[in-house]
């Protein structure tokens, strides 16, 4: 295996992680990959190694030393121990002063982090995104969150449970496995619980939508705990206090499309122009306006950058035969004139 392939893969991995590639970069990457199939594997490895190190972000620089010290002491004890069940409150108390966190069965242990603009939120943290902002961040328990535009959430991580209150908007969570501490998202009256899972919650009119990408969650309405409903990977659920039942439907491709915002994209597959514009408008100050109802019912297919409403307008106009009027504060789509 050529060391230089790994070196080149490392550079590409760093670039891919930094943000969307330009067309020229994308072409260069495709050309690089095309030379030898093995490069696909090398690139995956490099990108995965970055993701692996990223989990250290949950620790924050100062706590890294302290956490390592604790681990080293613990590990010495472990080698002499009889095999014990995976969990152990004994180990937790050993970590006095540091909020203990999920122990993945195969994987990672993380700790309380500092409350700082760059590092993960502490065990109690409030996070808010502005219009068009999409933020990925680690949580104090080792979970990862991707927070969508105009959203607000409050993180409350305790020794016996982990609560996230989604006050506004939408967020996706990759939950660090911890059977001792359920991870629960509260969105209005809606409750969603996971053990080791990846899922998103989006507040909508009267309720919340849940999309599961990995594992299983259970969801219910506060006060109706006996009516919990399982939602599995590839399925979407909708809950509302006004509805008698939780609606769950398997829709794997739709689930993935609906989460394209994590990569800064809107993935449309037959949504109407009005629906698409409403989605784009979540991400931009300059709003798309479609006054003509017939035009609004036209269907759109494609991937669009959420932060480029002009590009979307032009592309959509081409697709449905409309025209675009761009003004300083809004972008209007109109039927093509006679």
């Amino acid at each position, binding site marked *: *295996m050529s060391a230089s392939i790994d070196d080149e893969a*490392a*550079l590409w*991995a*760093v670039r891919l992680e930094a943000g969307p590639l330009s067309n020229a970069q994308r072409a260069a990457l495709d050309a690089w990959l095309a030379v030898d*199939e*093995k490069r*696909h*594997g*090398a*690139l*995956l*490895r*490099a*990108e*995965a*190694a*970055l*993701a*692996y*190190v*990223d*989990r*250290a*972000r949950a*620790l924050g*620089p100062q706590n*890294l030393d302290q956490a*390592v010290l604790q*681990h*080293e002491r*613990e*590990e010495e004890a*472990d*080698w002499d*121990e009889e*095999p*014990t069940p*995976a969990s152990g409150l004994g180990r937790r108390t050993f970590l006095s002063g540091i909020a203990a966190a999920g*122990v*993945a069965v*195969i*994987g*990672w*242990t993380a700790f309380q982090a500092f409350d700082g603009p*760059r*590092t993960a939120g502490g065990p109690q943290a409030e996070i808010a995104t502005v219009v068009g902002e999409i933020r990925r*961040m680690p949580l104090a328990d080792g979970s*990862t969150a991707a927070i969508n535009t105009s959203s607000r959430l409050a993180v409350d991580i305790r020794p016996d449970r982990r609560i996230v209150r989604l006050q506004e908007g939408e967020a996706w969570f*990759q939950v660090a496995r911890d059977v001792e501490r359920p991870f629960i998202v509260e969105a209005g009256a809606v409750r969603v619980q996971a053990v080791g899972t990846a899922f998103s919650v989006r507040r909508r009119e009267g309720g919340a939508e849940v999309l599961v*990408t*990995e594992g299983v969650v259970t969801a219910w309405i506060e006060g109706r705990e006996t009516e919990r409903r399982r939602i599995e*990977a*590839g399925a979407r659920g909708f809950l509302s206090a006004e509805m008698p039942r939780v609606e769950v439907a398997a829709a*794997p*491709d739709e689930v*993935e499309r609906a*989460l*394209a915002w*994590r990569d800064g994209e809107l993935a449309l597959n037959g949504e109407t122009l009005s629906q698409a514009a409403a989605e784009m408008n979540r991400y931009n100050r300059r709003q798309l306006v479609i006054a003509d109802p017939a035009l609004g019912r036209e269907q759109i297919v494609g991937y669009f950058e959420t932060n480029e409403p002009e590009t979307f307008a032009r592309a959509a106009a081409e697709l449905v035969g409309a025209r675009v009027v761009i003004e300083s504060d809004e972008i209007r789509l109109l039927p093509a004139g006679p």
Partner: protein
Amino acid sequence: MRQSRRDIISWVGRNIIPHEAHLRARLRHMAASEDEIDDIVQEAYLRISKLDTVAHIRNGRAYFFATARSVVLQRIRRKRIVRIDTLADMDSLELEDDVPSPERQASARAELRRVKKLIDDLPERCREIFTLRRIEGVPQREIAARLGVTENVVEGQAARGLKLLLKAIAVDEAGRKQNRHEADRGQRDNVGQY
């Protein structure tokens, strides 16, 4: 269900990368050369990179080992490895059970030490930039401004840090410690046979 590339990468980072060193140790136990080990591991990652989704995989470590085993078998069939005792050694690529042993759990926690040591061992400039970017999440542009260098330099140093990280992932104290334990057990078994 197709998963996004980002989800798959994240899964591989959590469920495959941590076990690479142990896999390599097992392959070394089979007396494969370093070049062969590199090829086998690379092929395993290649196969994983072709998956549409990883949602169905319950145990990443088991999947990784099983994939490597399949790669080895393929190489034997194509006569790339010619060793008489290889087939017997294939057993060492089987996982005995899914339950993490205390040793394996301890090594999972040792990952923390690995990452810290790895970052500490980076050359000065590289470590600074890698820490700013990866641990503190500072955007590339801001690092460049802060340190008075071009973004290209920042990118280059981040890539260099990743390069060294990749080398270190292949070599691991915890993995070797584990291997010694297993080797000890193996020796005891052999004695019992005679």
